[in-house]
């Protein structure tokens, strides 16, 4: 049975400050409307790019989106930040209304857009459970009948009559999630709840979500965590610039998404006249290619990275080294490697270097690369800073934990339980 049917859904937002001149614009809009003309502000059909290139102050957060979800399905919605995921969820949970299109919902909707909505710090845990439950659409009787279950799930029994302002943030989130998890809607909307709580609590949450689906309810799951999407969903949908670009089995959609992601940043090419560098050396190109046994063009913790650098040398008989630094997004240097010693002697002209970063070395996250051309193993000729940025994505064997591993590296060391 079809639970959600979305037809030609579009949502337009206005950028920038609302207020100055809006009365004038409102009157203008209204004037166009009564003359039966199309709203002058609505004709722009630019996609939601975040590169600041758009000229209009109106933007389509969603553009002509259609899909449907059946009973018992867990639909994963993925996409970059700003792809329109949140807008879609907000419209589905009736927080805001669409600009165009139509949605048919068959069943009650409950959303966990943000857990703990409406918690009041002065009220006790018990009072907040009732208040929050009521905000989410439960009646007092429903909450009373599930109260013990909710408290047990949250694990804050001891503090249930303490004002929540004295709770630790973990307790707060657990209690809030417990309330939300015990709603019994036909359609459940979940947005990034896995980002909170410890491993044990995450496991509980995922278990609860699976139960919900098994009971024949429908779940919409939005996450940046590709492994969670692959594990939990039976269908996935990829949004890009407010439109659906792919839908189908989670594994396929996730791969499609990952292979397209950040590809623009995986290489740079320069003409000699505007290449970075100086009179001694210039950068022609730098490129990155993930190497995998399965041949997929995706950059995950299980992909080796092949980095190729081409540079021009203008120094006669240069005794040269390249020194490559890899930095984490936060700016710490993860490692520094140099080319072979003794250093080779290079003629003037174009030269190439390659570096392979083995798979299962880097952790997930953003990294960037800088490199120097060094003369006589001691004198830097030029430092090419931040020439390449890339993101390593998650790829994990079945695990019930979906959090991020700490640390910059995640080497596959020989670590086993032997007895």
């Amino acid at each position, binding site marked *: 049975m079809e639970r959600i049917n979305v037809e030609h859904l579009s949502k337009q937002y206005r950028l920038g400050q609302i207020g100055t001149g809006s009365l004038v614009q409102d009157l203008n809009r209204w004037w166009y409307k009564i003359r039966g003309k199309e709203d002058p502000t609505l004709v722009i059909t630019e996609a939601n790019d975040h590169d600041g290139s758009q000229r209009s102050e109106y933007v389509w957060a969603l553009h002509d989106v259609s899909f449907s979800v059946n009973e018992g399905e867990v639909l994963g919605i993925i996409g970059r930040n700003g792809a329109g995921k949140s807008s879609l969820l907000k419209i589905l949970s009736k927080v805001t209304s669409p600009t165009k299109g139509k949605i048919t919902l068959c069943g009650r909707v409950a959303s966990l857009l943000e857990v703990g909505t409406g918690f009041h710090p002065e009220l006790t845990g018990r009072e907040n459970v009732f208040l929050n439950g009521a905000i989410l659409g439960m*009646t007092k009787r429903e909450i009373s009948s599930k109260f013990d279950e909710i408290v047990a799930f949250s694990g804050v029994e001891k503090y249930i009559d303490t004002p929540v302002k004295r709770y630790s943030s973990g307790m707060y989130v657990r209690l809030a999630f417990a309330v939300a998890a015990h709603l019994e809607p036909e359609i459940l909307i979940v947005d990034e709840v896995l980002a909170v709580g410890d491993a044990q609590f995450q496991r509980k949450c995922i278990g609860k979500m699976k139960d919900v689906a098994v009971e024949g309810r429908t779940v919409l799951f939005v996450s940046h965590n590709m492994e969670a999407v692959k594990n939990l969903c039976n269908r996935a949908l990829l949004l890009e610039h407010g439109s659906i670009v792919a839908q189908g089995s989670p594994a396929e959609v996730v791969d499609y998404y990952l292979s397209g992601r950040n590809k623009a940043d995986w290489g740079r090419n320069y003409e000699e006249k505007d290449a970075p560098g100086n009179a001694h050396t210039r950068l022609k190109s730098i490129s990155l290619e993930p190497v995998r046994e399965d041949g997929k063009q995706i950059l995950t913790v299980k992909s080796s990275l092949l980095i190729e650098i081409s540079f021009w040398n203008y120094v006669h008989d240069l005794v040269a080294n390249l020194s490559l630094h890899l930095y984490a997004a936060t700016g710490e240097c993860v490692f520094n490697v140099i080319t072979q010693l003794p250093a080779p002697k290079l003629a003037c002209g174009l030269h190439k270097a390659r570096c392979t970063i083995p798979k299962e070395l880097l952790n997930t996250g953003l990294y960037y690369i800088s490199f120097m051309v060094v003369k006589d193993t001691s004198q830097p000729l030029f430092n090419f800073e931040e020439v390449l940025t890339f993101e390593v994505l998650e790829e994990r064997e079945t695990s019930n934990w979906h959090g991020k591993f700490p640390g910059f590296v995640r080497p596959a060391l020989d670590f086993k339980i032997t007895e």
Partner: protein
Amino acid sequence: MGSSVGEFIAFILPNLKVNCWIKRTFVRKKQNFSSMDKPRYLEIITPKRRWFDTRLWELWHYRDLIVLFVKRDFVAQYKQTVLGPIWFVLQPLLTALVFFIVFGKIAAIPTAGIHPFLFYFTGLTFWGYFSDVFLKCANTFSVNASLFGKVYFPRLAVPLSILASGLIKLLVQIMVLIGIIIGFNLAGMATTTLNWTLTLIPVYTLLLALLAMGLGLLFSSLTTKYRDFSFLLTFGVQLLMYATPIIYPLSFARGAMHEILKWNPLTSIVENLRYSVFSSGTFDGLGLVYTAVFALFTLVLGVVFFNRVEQSFMDTV
């Protein structure tokens, strides 16, 4: 007197009918809701609902939420205060005292034979309810923006809870008012004679509530979009008090002013209230009918506009 009683019945009757109709609608829809547990519940989301599609019946399902909002307001407001709910009473008492000194003693405005302190305190108690509900309703969207941005529930639950918590506050104040009137009578500072219209106090309260909520809802849709209105409002309500016979009797105003004041829908409530409590002046049934029509019209308009804004305000705040 006989004719005004007739007018009264005429006023109450349609009102009762409306009540019955509302009840019927609510109860019928409630049954819809309970059958919703089976997946037969269908909802269609489109860009804009029709103007009168206000979905009032949804409120019935969320009635517990309204009660909990009221409870939250009380608990949260008076936690970590020493005097707690005594503030309910202290505020109008002190204001009445100041008015007594300024308007009663210094300006010596006549109070139609009622002891000035009682005159001001009665007026201020009910005025306080009106202005409280009005201003809070008008700020519904801006105060609750973060909550409204995350989860859906019928937004009217918030103004209704404001109405209810105001009512509880008013009841406490009325108790104190009764106590003070008895005290003044015992001390021989006033002689109060009761009359049958005392039983109409719930009607006055209801009218005041409808009017305050109606106006509040109307302005809430404006304050969301143009923030200037929230400044205008705080200021405007203060001015409105002087345009309502709170610190002076209507009879004090003469000529054109008298006529203008009569068009203020609050005038008949305040004047009749004083007649009911102190038997001073005359009873104005027609005025109440005018107020009732005005209040209902404002409320319907307010609900419709509120409902309109509710669907789009998240994109404008």
